[in-house]
């Protein structure tokens, strides 16, 4: 927990983005999570990503379920509407919100209990439906608020703080999202902001369901030896396939890379993903290859991170539903109500 309230006034030379906002304008209430919690680093990464992308805070809706992770939307983007819904059901609430207004950015924040245990059904179906959202799972393999029970992403054979061995197979949410049709799938580590911030930026600029599975150690209940979600374990087994940089159309392209080491992907909205390859053979446009790679490396005890898959021509739920361009929540009475004349004609057909 952060005990000291942040000062409201910043020095005049605090960096501002194109909208004139400082990073502080993207922050939220003071976190009530444990000191050193990985989730707070993720919140900071979200703040950084939104600041960098010049996102208007009120054009973001942040939604969550229940759990430590789901409390975090209170701790970032204080000028955005937030919705801490019910356990495991954030995806449906987010889907409804996205149906109502296609012009906002939807940020879903969830945990491994919220998404892989109680909420696996809704997680799966939101991916299938192509909801245009950034879905961040703050994955620590454990239930924090109820003090240390295993979640469904905990590795088989990992040990709880109380010494219990987990005998159930783990759910890999990134692999599942790939199988279910998510069009932007990444994995990262809360302790590696350099990797995480660009992945969040790429997801926010993606048109379709974007999942980022962020391993986020629980310092209180899952950071011991024998855990496969501790800071030490994740650092030692992290195998990044690439490093991403998000280039907006307005940005000058200055970076230079040795030939063959860079992949350039243009997203639907014109943003460009520069992928610096760390694994030369890894192809982030190959869904099946990505699934295979995750499974092979998991069998070797490795944690694969980076941008695992992206479909730059993805279409979202609204294009499947053929909805009007104007957000449904802004259609006036005249666009919605057929009126009395139509009713008279209908009455005539019903006699």
């Amino acid at each position, binding site marked *: 927990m952060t005990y000291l309230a942040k000062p409201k006034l910043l020095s005049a030379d605090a960096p501002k983005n194109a909208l004139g906002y400082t990073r502080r304008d993207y922050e939220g209430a003071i976190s009530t999570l444990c000191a050193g919690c990985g989730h707070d680093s993720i919140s900071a990464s979200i703040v950084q990503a939104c600041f960098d992308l010049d996102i208007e805070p009120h054009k973001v809706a942040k939604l969550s379920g229940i759990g430590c992770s789901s409390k975090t939307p209170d701790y970032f983007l204080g000028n955005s509407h937030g919705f801490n819904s019910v356990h495991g*059901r954030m995806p449906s609430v987010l889907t409804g919100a996205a149906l*109502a207004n296609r012009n906002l950015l939807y940020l879903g924040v969830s945990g491994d209990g919220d998404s892989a245990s109680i909420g696996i059904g809704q997680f*799966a179906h939101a991916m299938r439906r192509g909801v245009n959202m950034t879905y961040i799972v703050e994955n620590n393999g454990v239930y924090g608020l109820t003090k240390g029970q295993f979640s469904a992403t905990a590795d088989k054979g990992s040990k709880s703080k109380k010494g219990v061995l987990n005998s159930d197979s783990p759910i890999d949410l990134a692999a599942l999202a790939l199988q279910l049709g998510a069009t932007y799938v990444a994995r990262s580590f809360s302790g590696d902001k350099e990797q995480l911030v660009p992945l969040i930026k790429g997801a926010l600029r993606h048109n379709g369901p974007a999942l980022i599975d962020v391993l986020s150690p629980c310092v209180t209940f899952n950071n011991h030896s024998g855990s496969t979600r501790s800071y030490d374990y994740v650092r030692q087994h992290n195998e990044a396939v690439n490093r991403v940089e998000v280039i907006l159309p307005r940005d000058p392209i200055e970076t230079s890379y040795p030939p063959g080491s860079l992949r350039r992907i243009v997203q639907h909205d014109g943003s460009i993903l520069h992928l610096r390859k760390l694994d030369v053979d890894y192809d982030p446009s190959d869904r099946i290859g990505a699934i295979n790679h995750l499974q092979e490396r998991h069998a070797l005890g490795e944690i694969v991170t980076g941008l695992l898959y992206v479909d730059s021509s993805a279409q979202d739920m609204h294009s499947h539903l053929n909805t009007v361009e104007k957000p449904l929540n802004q259609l006036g009475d005249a666009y919605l109500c057929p009126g009395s004349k139509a009713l008279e004609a209908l009455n005539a057909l019903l006699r």
Partner: protein
Amino acid sequence: MKSAQSIASINDFVIKFANVNGSGSASANELFARAVMRMGVPVAPRNIFPSNIQGLPTWYEVRVSEAGWLGARGGCDMMIAMNPQTWDRDVASLDAGGYLFYDSTKPMPASKFRDDITVLGVPLTAMCNREYTDPRQRQLFKNVMYVGALIALLDMEFGVAEALIVDRYRGKDPLIQANVHALRLGYDYVRAYLPCPIGLTIRRADAVGDRIFIDGNSACGLGAVYGGATVTGWYPITPSTSVIESFTSYCRKYRTDPDSGHARYAAVQAEDELASIGMVIGAAWNGARAFTATSGPGISLMQEFFGLAYFAEIPAVIFDVQRGSPSTGMPTKTQQSDLLACAYASHGDTRHVLLFPENPYECFTFGALAFDLADRLQTPVFVLSDLDMGMNESLCKPFDWDDSRRYDRGKLMTYEELEAGKDFGRYLDVDGDGIPYRTIPGTHPTKGAYFTRGTTRNAYAKYSESGADYVYNMERLRRKFDTAKNLVPAPVLHAASQPTRFGAIHYGSTSPAMAEASALLEADGIHVDTLRVCGFPFCDEIMQFIADHEQVFVVEQNESGQLRSLLINEGEIDPKKLVRVLHYDGSPITARFISSRIADALSDRKISPIRKVAS
């Protein structure tokens, strides 16, 4: 063959069609019902069907009533016995003096008939086999053929049925000719070989007026369109699915953008009822009008979300088309058994706004109204229909709409108000009616954002575990519910022809049977004032009605008397004052049932006159 006096009646009888599910009989049976209506005689048809796609018995009951009684009557004056599986019970269910119509292709032993009924045989299968080679045609046209036979037997106008066929298949001439031909075959056979008309006849009348004929679910879907709903998340469940089918089909007609062809609505079939109500709540939180349609099992699944929407104060509209419960219960039978599950849905101290339409007209008007109420009150609003009302077509007054009406979006704080520095406390009772102001996401760049949660908070939506904040909020929610009392539709009083100490309270689809029961009782000198409850929370008028009567019958279609329990609980009524009249076998309640129960109860109390009404 007949010894009892044959039933003789003009424009007042019940005909039942016994069919096999999936045999295509539904459209032929409906053709018959519409033909009666086109002759100006009201009908009240009902499907009695199994939870099955094909092969099981199904019945279509047509009550013909020039007097206009639309409730189920009970009994059967004529049986169209087209299903060998149910022959014995169909024959047994005929009233003495009734008429049995059957396919006489195969000779039946005399033991299969009764000696107190009139038997009318037409060799339908033989006629079809002669006429058609395709097995499907043989089946379908057999149905049309028996309608033709009925037209002759009941002395109806052939041209009326013919015109209906022309209307139905307009533009498809070969279908028109084929159907009219089959109709003619049945008609001509009867005219040639059977004595007709029989004792039951249809005589042209003028008792239908400008009424329309539609089912409640279609009307609910249309109400959602007129109510401005743009989002529905839904999951298929009998008997509510056709609410959504109606919504999407009317939307395709009325809500397709003429220029772009894009949809001004979004309907998403969810993975389950939890997701469907979750979508509704997400959409409504974000400022769209959203609804779902479901039945009892779905209501059970949605409980947690109802509590969230109640406590976080998010509008939602739920059409609950009630069916036989508990559990999977009787999925294709009717009941009014979700009342308590909806009124107090979810854990903790919750209360929900309920609307009780009586027929398709009110399914439409209450359905549209529900969206205004949900926005005004920022809470879930339930429209409680049932299978009887929802899935059966019924005569009702034509739909109307006032074009000057504007949607009431409730207390929304605008960009301008925020910009002008107006104080925004999401859960602050500014006006004393318990209803706070809300902002829609995206309203203002730096003001008016808040964090919605199901946990407790203070009036400014900040997380708070303070007892005082919690109590402030709960008391405000109570005030808000009191405000709702005067926003839900007022009850409808029907006073007896003379002052009486007795009253009856009822709601929803019980209405037509209750009206008829009142008339039956009046005819026997028993006077009962009736009050139809149209919404919850209960307004003072309902409690006054109870206070004004010595004894009040609460007539409803469930086993425990849920409306009665709700009245006792909310109005602090002495339970002895409210007498249960309960019908819950899955069939629609009848006037005969209600009137006999009330007459019996009053005769037990030695209230004169005590003549018993036939049951």
